[in-house]
């Protein structure tokens, strides 16, 4: 029987994806806009539809700490969080990656306080940029489901053994009811082989994990981690290719939309990319040579792919949904500039920040961002970057 698209809330679909991946342990603490994900998983466990341990903890710090333990014991481990919750986990995130624990976590991206905001932006994601996790961004519900499945396969690959964060925009994705095609369970089973963690905690075969790292070994441990995270890129790409073969939906580290040979490029991440694509259609219809580039793989950063896709353009406008307060430009733009620095051919890179704390950007808004970006590239601006639509 052909699988059918059904209307469901994206958060519920994520719970279903974790169920299809047959997770062993979910340790989580509810926080808006992520709550529906773990609420659904708690329900699946309580109803006996998912044979897993659901650990209701007292904070996100505990959630990730419990995930460390279960993953180290060799159990397939999943959690979800958002915003302040991700911040409360912060120190434990480093432990998960440096102990090489293949935990999968969805983050319903949310702004950071104060002022208190439950709404979406990428501040939380940017704050955990250097935690050593593989990080993927998604644009719609289907992409979230597909990439949660891929995340388990990537994380647990013996060449990788690193935790993976799947970012989805809070509310704009997490709370959306939309058409989603859930793959068949048998196909998912074939796609994600059983977890074989090489050194699981076992009283009969004791191992030490996350032990003291005195000065004579700390640098080496960190370098090993750096090398592994960089090498993981090939496995991520390989996984997406395999997913494409089996499920006919295709993903890559840097994706394009009508960008070939474009004079001006807009770069986005996350769900606003679809609205941006609609804006590109409009400006293309007016005969303008403008395209879109979407960054899907945030860590490890896809240097070669990015350079190849943007260096021929004259102007590159980067939309950030977060700030690096007092720093150079938006955090994504900063990295793009760094990736292009010293390249023989490179576009003029303009930083625009927008969509902070859940503020919508319409199709017309993206058109305005594009024209403003072109103007800044040509005439300069008195600021290092601009916040689109901000009332000064």
């Amino acid at each position, binding site marked *: 029987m052909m699988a059918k*698209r*059904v*209307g*469901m*809330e994206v958060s519920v679909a994520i719970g279903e994806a974790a169920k299809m991946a047959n997770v062993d342990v979910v340790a989580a603490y509810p926080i*808006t*806009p992520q709550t529906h994900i773990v609420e659904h998983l708690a329900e699946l466990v309580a109803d006996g539809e998912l044979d897993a341990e659901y650990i209701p903890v007292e904070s996100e710090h505990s959630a990730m700490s419990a995930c460390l333990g279960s993953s180290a014991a060799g159990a397939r481990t999943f959690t979800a969080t958002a915003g302040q919750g991700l911040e409360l986990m912060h120190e434990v995130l480093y432990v998960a990656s440096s102990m090489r624990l293949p935990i999968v976590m969805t983050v319903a991206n949310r702004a950071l306080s104060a002022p208190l905001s*439950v*709404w*979406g932006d990428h501040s939380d994601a940017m704050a955990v940029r250097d935690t050593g996790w593989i990080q993927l961004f998604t644009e719609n519900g289907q992409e979230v489901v597909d990439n949660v499945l891929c995340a388990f396969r990537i994380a647990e690959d013996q060449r990788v053994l690193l935790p993976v964060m799947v970012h989805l*925009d809070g*509310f*704009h*994705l997490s*709370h*959306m*009811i*939309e*058409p989603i095609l859930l793959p068949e369970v048998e196909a998912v089973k074939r796609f994600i082989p059983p977890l074989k963690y090489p050194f699981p905690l076992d009283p009969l075969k004791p191992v030490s994990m996350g032990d003291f790292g005195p000065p004579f070994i700390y640098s080496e441990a960190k370098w090993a981690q750096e090398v592994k995270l960089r090498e993981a890129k090939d496995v991520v790409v390989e996984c997406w290719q395999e997913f494409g073969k089996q499920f006919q939906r295709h993903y890559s580290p840097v994706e394009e939309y009508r960008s070939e040979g474009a004079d001006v490029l807009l770069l986005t991440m996350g*769900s*606003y990319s*679809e*609205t941006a*694509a*609609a804006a590109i259609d409009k400006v293309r219809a007016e005969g303008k040579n403008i395209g879109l580039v979407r960054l899907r793989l945030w860590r490890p950063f896809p240097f070669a792919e990015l350079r190849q896709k943007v260096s021929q353009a004259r102007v590159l406008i980067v939309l950030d949904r977060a700030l690096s307060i007092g720093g150079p430009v938006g955090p994504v733009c900063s990295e793009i500039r760094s990736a292009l620095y010293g390249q023989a051919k490179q576009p003029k890179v303009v930083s625009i920040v927008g969509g902070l704390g*859940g503020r*919508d*950007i*319409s*199709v017309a808004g993206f058109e305005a961002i594009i024209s403003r970006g072109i103007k800044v590239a040509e005439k300069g601006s008195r600021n290092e970057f601009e916040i689109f639509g901000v009332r000064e």
Partner: protein
Amino acid sequence: MVDINQLVEIRWHGRGGQGAVTSAELLARAAIDEGKYAQAFPSFGPERRGAPVLSFVRVDSQQPIRTRAGIQEPDVVVVLDTTLLAITKITAGLKADGMVVINTRKPVKELRQEFGINCPLATVDATTIAREVLGIPITNTTMLGALVKATGIVKLESLEEPLKQRFGRLAERNIAAMKKAYQETSVKE
């Protein structure tokens, strides 16, 4: 009139607890079951029982929907609670050829005079129907019947399965309330 072959944007006005979010979800699911593209979402953020709330639906029979921004210029506005008319400008941003579907006992002429509603208008006494059929004055499923009568956005039958999944043993009565409202809704240009 609302052209259901184009992208249709619907804004629901209700009060927290009346099921505006659920109606939006059920409608989107019915449209998706018909093979259309649709999305439904609440007004993002914290909500309180009894306070005015919004929910949104987009339906496109032709192509995937690419915008997730809140609906500022709806084609259709559905009002679950009559008392909202006095405190909210429910026609705010309504497209020139848009329409309004209201749960009310008031005659259309009076509504037009009192609230300056000049567009096509569909009315039904959903509260009375809900009280009679469901035993409670929750009008979300009832107003789905009114919306379908007014716009034909989905087939009435397409809502039955989503209602069954959502309400279980209470589904039958909700379907009956929806059908009764469909029959009793009157549409005025």
